[in-house]
């Protein structure tokens, strides 16, 4: 027994001395993630914004883009587009090497893009982003021509996407698709070093890096010598580790903690408004009460989205109004004039549609209740807030918090009145996926037009916008598309998606990548 007590005292002393060592940490940067299940770090395969958090720091793209989506020379010094919009000729930098010593050149560009469209690769994101890709021609060592099958209006944005990062062809050949995803080789400011499953990924500085895009503050290698990505799923642990100084940067920090840090000044914060689809609900136009456009409009009017967003996010997210978020290119300001908070207006629309208030506070028509089935996959608190507002004008909203598998079943069976969504996307071209009639889900076929809205006029607009010749036409077509969606009241935007980041006050240079979700660590330095 005495021995045991001695043993435990020994452990206690050990603990003290260890924590002493820990206070003298090096300049390594530690980052925490909200997901424990990174699967691959291959930009060609992944479509996970969490995996891309690391990928943006390991790889470069042909065209660089800052957090506002402005384009700069990247691995390509300049580029020309043929007059028919089918050929993109890239004049590449001749001073770039991959982390494994392979020379970056036109052959690497060709190998990357050709492998993306190879079904064997199993690309989940890049192949869609590459769109109507036909082939890449190696004109000479440092000139590559990418050819499309038809005009592709989103091509330049596509070449800035993380998914179209250029990968080392020698590493690819050596490691194969699966091996490459576990030990990626790119040209970026950080090199992959080590991955402990479900725990952490370590990157080290690329000492040869001398091709930072011009919008960065620094040049040459980064000042950060090691980047450790700790995977901490539990929010309170993530925040506690940040406050204890064990990690230096944390993402997805709850708004309440963001407010606390801003008030105390103990930690610095940045918030990114993510481009793409805001947090929004599709209203099902084919079954139930939302078949009637007036009922849909009444539902829109019943929500005070500004107050609701403020109550949920304490000023760290803005209410959203349109089908794409305000930070997405071609966003139409006119969205914000639609469907203001108007209880009287909502009630009038419902009365007009024949829904009379019942004694239990739920409206009725021909003995049927104004009931809405709302399976909620994302942000249950927001779903419940929506429920509360809609109830005031006589909707009976049944919120069921669901897992993905249950939601999929409901989608296949057309068994829902509304469903929520949110996406990160750099281009308004993403709208074709949830609004084209060919994307209405069928049993066994998972697709994204969850409003199940079919309109040949809208389909045509979406197709035309995809191959628009000039930016003006593109903006105009996406304006018409957004207006159409708003007029039909099929997609109820609630709030912008935000990425809330808090970090040590000793650091500066923390910046978002394009899309405002991932962080570029290249410029981070000690004050």
């Amino acid at each position, binding site marked *: 027994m005495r021995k*045991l007590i001695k043993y435990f005292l020994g*452990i206690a002393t*050990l*603990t*003290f001395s*260890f*924590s002493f060592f*820990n206070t003298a940490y090096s300049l390594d940067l530690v980052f*925490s993630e909200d997901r*424990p*299940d990174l*699967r*691959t770090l291959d930009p060609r395969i992944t*479509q*996970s914004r969490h995996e891309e958090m690391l990928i943006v720091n390991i790889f470069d793209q042909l065209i660089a883009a800052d957090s506002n989506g402005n384009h700069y020379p990247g691995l390509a010094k300049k580029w020309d587009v043929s007059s028919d919009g089918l050929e993109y000729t890239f004049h590449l930098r001749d001073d770039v090497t991959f982390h494994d010593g392979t020379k970056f050149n036109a052959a690497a560009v060709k190998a990357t893009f050709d492998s993306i469209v190879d*079904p*064997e690769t*199993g*690309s*989940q*994101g890049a*192949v*869609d982003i590459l769109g109507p890709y036909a082939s890449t021609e190696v004109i000479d060592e440092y000139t590559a021509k990418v050819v499309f099958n038809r005009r592709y209006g989103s091509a330049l944005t596509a070449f800035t996407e993380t998914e179209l990062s250029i990968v080392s062809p020698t590493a690819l050949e050596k490691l194969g698709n*699966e091996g490459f*995803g576990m030990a990626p080789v790119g040209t970026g400011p950080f090199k992959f070093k080590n991955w*402990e*499953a*479900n*725990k952490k990924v370590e990157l080290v500085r690329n000492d040869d890096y001398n091709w930072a895009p011009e919008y960065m503050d620094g040049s040459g290698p980064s000042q950060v010598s090691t980047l450790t990505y*700790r*995977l*901490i*799923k*539990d929010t*309170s*642990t*993530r925040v*506690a*580790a940040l*406050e*204890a100084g*064990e*990690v230096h940067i944390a993402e997805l920090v709850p708004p309440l903690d963001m407010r606390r840090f801003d008030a105390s000044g103990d930690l610095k914060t940045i918030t990114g408004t993510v481009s793409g689809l805001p947090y929004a609900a599709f209203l099902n136009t084919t079954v139930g009460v939302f078949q009637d456009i007036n009922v849909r409009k009444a539902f829109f009017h019943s929500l005070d989205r500004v107050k609701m967003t403020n109550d949920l996010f304490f000023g760290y997210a803005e209410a959203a109004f349109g089908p794409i978020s305000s930070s997405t290119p071609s966003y139409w300001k006119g969205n914000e004039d639609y469907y203001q908070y108007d209880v009287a207006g909502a009630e009038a629309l419902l009365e007009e549609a024949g829904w009379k208030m019942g004694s239990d506070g739920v409206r009725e028509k021909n003995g049927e209740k104004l009931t809405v089935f709302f399976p909620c*996959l994302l942000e249950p608190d927001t779903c419940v807030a929506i429920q509360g507002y809609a109830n005031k004008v006589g909707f009976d909203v049944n919120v069921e918090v669901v897992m*993905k*598998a*249950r939601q*999929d*079943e409901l989608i296949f069976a057309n068994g829902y009145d509304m469903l929520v*969504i*949110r*996406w990160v*996307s750099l281009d308004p071209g*993403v709208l074709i*996926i*949830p609004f084209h009639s060919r994307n209405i889900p069928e049993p066994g*076929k*998972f*697709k*994204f037009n969850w409003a199940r809205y079919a309109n040949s006029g809208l389909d045509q607009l979406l197709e035309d916008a995809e191959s628009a010749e000039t930016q003006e036409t593109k903006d105009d077509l996406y304006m018409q598309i957004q207006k159409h969606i708003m007029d039909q009241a099929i997609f109820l935007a609630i709030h912008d998606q935000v990425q809330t980041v808090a970090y040590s006050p000793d650091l500066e240079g923390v910046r978002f990548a394009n899309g405002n979700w991932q962080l570029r660590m290249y410029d981070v330095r000690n004050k």
Partner: protein
Amino acid sequence: MNFFIKKLIIVIPTLYIAWTVVFVTLNIIPGDPVNLMLGGRPASEEVRENVRKNLGLDKPVAERYVSFLINATKGDLGKSYLTRQPVTKMIKENMMPTIQLSIGGLIFGVFFGVFFGIIAGTKPNSMRDTFAMVIALCGISLPSFWIGMMLIFIFGTTLGWVPIVGEGFVSLILPSISVGLFFAGGMARLTRSSLVDVLNQDYIRTAKSKGLSTYNIILKHSLRNAMIPPVTLLGIQFGLLITGAVITEEVFARPGLGQLLLQAILAKDIPLVQALVVYMTAVYIFLNLIVDFTYGIIDPRIRLERKSA
């Protein structure tokens, strides 16, 4: 020895049944692994069909079952749908952290469990008995996520004594306490009641009348005889720990089999779930054997009974 051979013969059919039940269940419950894997992300239909084909999910269920089975008999448990890594590799990677946490929890649990059990059991219905049992009750009934968060708050954030998500041995202390507390609670209660029983036996009265010291009576004469029920509990609880402590792993951001299984089930990653279930079943059977074996050491009469049986 016969006894062990008999037990081992049961192992293989048990594993096979567990493995098949998982395959059948996961194929019956709703949810398509491809859609679950791609999440709500805007992947096109071509992408979905291609992923399905690459994973072999375009083949009929019966065909997949047979090819799984053939590969399994060759020792190849397949590749995870999610990561496309061999499932045995994934289990291996997550096994060490789980074993470390289990042993940490076991040491903490046994030490404090037996300690409080003795405090309470040697003087039943006294103040110190009540005190020890209240602590044991807390250990059993407080939810582990709460204990975990409190430990982080007190020792990590406020006092700063131990790292919250650090590396190495020190990072094991708080999670071990977190899982060990539950363990300790059950051990303490069982040790107490068992000890109370034993201390009322005639041979203890004899020992006392021989003039042996209290220390000697408790540690040498009573505790050994009182340990059979706690050892059984130990086997069961260690079995629970070694198959992963989901909540503790999540709160302390530790890798481990609990998290792995949870992710695999949610994603309907059938090969991974099957492999994990086989592993866990095997561990349970193995631990049961060890417990049986330990009985014989604690109480030689059991060994004799087995021989004569």
